[in-house]
Every structure is written in structure tokens, then in C-alpha cells.
């Protein structure tokens, strides 16, 4: 590499000396003007729908343009431990929940939400979370969610006693903490409230008042077979219904529109023949949807105990209205996490090892591929709305 660069540089210099000793200067009568100090790049208040937030699961969160061949990094914000992201639809700011220690990896622990300005990526606000109880888990869905029309933020805590801290994101203050013993993760439900998956196989729903206090709760019958065919906790929302899939390949829709979640009838992703060939869902952020009726699922053949988090070779697309598979997309590289952008013509974004592959979801054609410098474990992909 060094030898190579040295050569090219040297020849460039020769070129400069021999071919146009004066010519060059004549071609450009005036020198380049002095530039401004300081000069810091800014971003638009409203990001284009070709951009995505990439959560490197505790290293950084990167804003990346996947909608153009420039493939440029637009900016980054810091991430220290199990950092998760919330991006509102209608305010020029976004939020991260993170945890630091006063002496790098030891000392006093602080859990906090940072408010970032879309334009400058400057931290314009901070909400310190009490109790040093925020869940430290590989960044996944359900750790930091909106409710109350995106005015409230919900932070999942695990110590290993489970609770939820309710935050007013506009007033930048903590409102309350709700215990959810034996239950994990947060799935917003109703106008103001959330549901959570419990270790008895049920879903517990909690209704909140304007002060973030629990004013009601309801628990479903057990439907989650935790031992042999549990729900993956990754999910996607279609028309107010949250779609989960199980390790063995069933779909489990849950209606989240009212305060108390309703478990809807499940249906299989795979035929008997496909089941026999051990086709199963597999990956990390293994579900995506267009929000209207198309459900995208990362699928792997020859699956067995222990492969449930491996990258998968195909994406199967289902029409949730007819419960039928409408497309099968073969990936150029096995994918671990997937998402659909919110552009008029959506793009299918697939994290595949240390690359980010961008496909046409209609045809399955690979449009472009970006690399993911520093990627080493898992990734959450959040397209801009």
C-alpha cells in the first residue's frame, strides 16, 4: 500500500513538474481563497427518507445515506453501553438512552437520555434517569419506546427486577417508575400506556395517566411457549397490530390499538414441507414491514437448536391480510437485521456481517452495498420517517 501510494504520488509530482510547470498556474489565475475557521457541517432539520440511523449496539449511532450511491456518513452520536434510540416524527430532535461510569468502566454509574438537535447533532437536553437500573442488554427493540403521541418516553429497567421509567420528553423530566415483575421489554399500547412480555407466557398491559402513573392493567392468557417455540422479541407494526414470529415459524399478531393488548389468532409462516426442511425465522432485527400489509421475515433453512440468532439467507414476504407468502428474496449475503425505508419507493436495508446491502424490495435486486466500519456484533436499523 505504502509503496503503491508513494509511486502514484511521485508520478503526480513529476507530472506537475514536467507537463505544466507554469501552465497550471495560468489555467487558474487566482489561488484558492483562504477558508473559514471554525467551520462545522450541519444537517437539515427534516432528514430525507433515504437516510437511516444505524445503532452499532454500543459503539456509536450513525446517520447514513443509503438512498444514494454517495453512501456517505452524515453524522454520528456517541454510544457507550446498550444504547438505544428514539426518533420522533414531527420534532427536529431525537433521543438516545445510554449509561456511563465516572471512571470509564467503573465508578459512579449514570443512566441518562440525551436530546440531540437534528441540525447540529449537539446535545441540547439531558434527562438523568434515577436508580441506576436501566437494562444493559445488547441493544434491541423494546428497551426505549414512545407513548402518549411521542410526548412520553418509556425506558425498560432490569436489575434483575423489571420496571419501566416514564419520562416527559418535552418537559425533559422523569415522571414515574412502574414495576413489571417477571416481565420484559416495552411495546406501546393504546393512547397512553405499554404492554410487556411476561415469563408466564402472557402479555401484561399497563394504562398510564398524564402523570405517567399506572391507572389500570390487564394480562392476556398465556400464548408464548417460552421453552420450545417462544416469540422472538423483535416485532413490526402493521396498522396498529404488532406482528411477532416464533422460533419454529409461526406468526403471532397482537392488536395494540386499545389500552389492553388483544392476542389475535396466529398462523404459520411455513408449510409442512418447509417445516420438514427446517425453514425457520432467524437473525436479530429479523422482521420488517411496509406498515400497510407486507411482512418481511428473515428465513433460514436447515435451522436447529442454537442457530436462532444466526444470519439468514432469504427474506420471505407475506401479505398479512391473506396470510400468504407473496415473495421470496434470496440475499447476496446472509442477513442479521433488516428494515424498509419510508421513501415513496421503499428500499430494503439488510445488515449482512460488516456490510449494509440495499435491495429493491419489489424485485429483490441488489441496488448498492455499503460497509460498516467497526461493526462487530449486532445492529439495529431505524429508517428516517
Amino acid at each position: 500500500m505504502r509503496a503503491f501510494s508513494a509511486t502514484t504520488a511521485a508520478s503526480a509530482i513529476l507530472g506537475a513538474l514536467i507537463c505544466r510547470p507554469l501552465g497550471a498556474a495560468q489555467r487558474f489565475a487566482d489561488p484558492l481563497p483562504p477558508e473559514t475557521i471554525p467551520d462545522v457541517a450541519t444537517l437539515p432539520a427534516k432528514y430525507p427518507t433515504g437516510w437511516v440511523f444505524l445503532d452499532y449496539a454500543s459503539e456509536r449511532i450513525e446517520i447514513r445515506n443509503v438512498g444514494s450511491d454517495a453512501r456517505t456518513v452524515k453524522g454520528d452520536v456517541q454510544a457507550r453501553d446498550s444504547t438505544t434510540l428514539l426518533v420522533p416524527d414531527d420534532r427536529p430532535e431525537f433521543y438516545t438512552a445510554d449509561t456511563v461510569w465516572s471512571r470509564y468502566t467503573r465508578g459512579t454509574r449514570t443512566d441518562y437520555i440525551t436530546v440531540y438537535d437534528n441540525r447540529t447533532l449537539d446535545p441540547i437536553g439531558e434527562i438523568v434517569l434515577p436508580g441506576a437500573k436501566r437494562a444493559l442488554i445488547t441493544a434491541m427493540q423494546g428497551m426505549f419506546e414512545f407513548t402518549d403521541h411521542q410526548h412520553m418516553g418509556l425506558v425498560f429497567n432490569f436489575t434483575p427486577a423489571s420496571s419501566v421509567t416514564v419520562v416527559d420528553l418535552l418537559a425533559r423530566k422523569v415522571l414515574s417508575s412502574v414495576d413489571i415483575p417477571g416481565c420484559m421489554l416495552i411495546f406501546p399500547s393504546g393512547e397512553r400506556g405499554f404492554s410487556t412480555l411476561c415469563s408466564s407466557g402472557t402479555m401484561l398491559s399497563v394504562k398510564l395517566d398524564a402523570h405517567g402513573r399506572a391507572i389500570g392493567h390487564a394480562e392476556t392468557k398465556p400464548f408464548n411457549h417460552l421453552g420450545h417455540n417462544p416469540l422472538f422479541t423483535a416485532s413490526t407494526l402493521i396498522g396498529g397490530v404488532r406482528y411477532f414470529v416464533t422460533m419454529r415459524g409461526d406468526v403471532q399478531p397482537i392488536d395494540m390499538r386499545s389500552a389492553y393488548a388483544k392476542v389475535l389468532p396466529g398462523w404459520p409462516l411455513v408449510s409442512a414441507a418447509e417445516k420438514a426442511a427446517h425453514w425457520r425465522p432467524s437473525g436479530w432485527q429479523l422482521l420488517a414491514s411496509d406498515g400497510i400489509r407486507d411482512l418481511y421475515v428473515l428465513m433460514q433453512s436447515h435451522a436447529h437448536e442454537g442457530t436462532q440468532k444466526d444470519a439468514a439467507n432469504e427474506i420471505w414476504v407475506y401479505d398479512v391480510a391473506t396470510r400468504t407468502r407473496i415473495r421470496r428474496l434470496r440475499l447476496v449475503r446472509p442477513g442479521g437485521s433488516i428494515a424498509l425505508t419510508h421513501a415513496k419507493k421503499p428500499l430494503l436495508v439488510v445488515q449482512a456481517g460488516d456490510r449494509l446491502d440495499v435491495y429493491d424490495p419489489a424485485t429483490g435486486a441488489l441496488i448498492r452495498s455499503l460497509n460498516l466500519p467497526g461493526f462487530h456484533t449486532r445492529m439495529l436499523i431505524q429508517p428516517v420517517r
Partner: protein
Amino acid sequence: MADLDRFTERMLRGFAHRTSRRSLFSVLGGMLAGAASLPLLPLARADGATSAADPNSGERAPVYSGNPQDPGNQSSCDYWRYCAIDGSICACYGGSAHACPPGTEMSPICWIGTCRNPADGRNYIVSYNDCCGGILWGRCNCQRNDGDRPVVRPQNNNEITWCFGVKSQSYTCTVAIILGVAPKQK
């Protein structure tokens, strides 16, 4: 097995909101051994860190127990005890298969797996304990998910940072500790 799980879950939910962390730990500790679902055939897998490994490397300098009944390189993802590990191997940080590196603290609570010892043919219940408060992890990363379940069953999930009841919850690495021989499977 299923009954035991249901029992465990009820216990967990019952205890979680009225016991101190400490007492919860011991309760969990007791129950987890029973509650573990038991994959019998370890199938070695590892991420890029392994393929980057170098026979002449200090990153994975081989670490052996010296006991013929506990064979294998404790700094390799293939070591028999690591059948359900997800994280960095402490033997690469100055620890061993069952000891945290100096300067870290071992969390008393853990997740559970069952691995077959190729030397004596027995299945052992293995406790995966995280070592906390040392340097940031990243070396000797292994991921083997036999028996791993979504976080809704935390005692069988390896994505959670199991650093509880320790001074710092910043994750460094993971050890694999023998709790005992697994009960015979029906």
C-alpha cells in the same frame, strides 16, 4: 421440565418485586440449575474473532487445565464448557475458564447451560458468569446459542449483561463454571 419452568416463572414473578437483589440472587441461583433447558450436543461456532486467531498468537494463548478429565484449550470457543456462551472469554484477559481476570468482579448471578464433557462423557450444568468493571470487552468473542432463549426467559438468555450485585455493571468477559452433573433426561 415444562412444569418446572412454569413453577420457576411463577417464583420469579413472585419474588422479583418483594425481595432484595441479594436474596433474589440466591433464589435464582437455586432455581436456575433446575430451570435450565438442556442441549446435549455442543456444536462449535464462533465469530470473526476466531477466524482472526493466530496459532502463534497471544490473543488466544492456549490455556489448559492440566486435568485429563477437563480437556481442551480454555481460550478457544470450541472448549467443551462454552456450549452456550455469548461474549468474551476471560481466559484471554488473564482469567481462566472459571476465574475472572484480575481487577474485575464476578457477578453472583448468571445464565445456565448444559455441556457434554468429552473426557468423561457426562453432561454438566454450566453457570455462565459475567466479569465486570475491567476493560471494555472485545477480545476472544464467542457466540454459541445452544439453549439460548429470548430475554423473556432471562435465566436462559445470553444477551443480558449479567453484572448484578457488583460495583460496576460495565461488561468485561464471561466464565463457564461447573455447578454439577445434569439430571438424566427423560
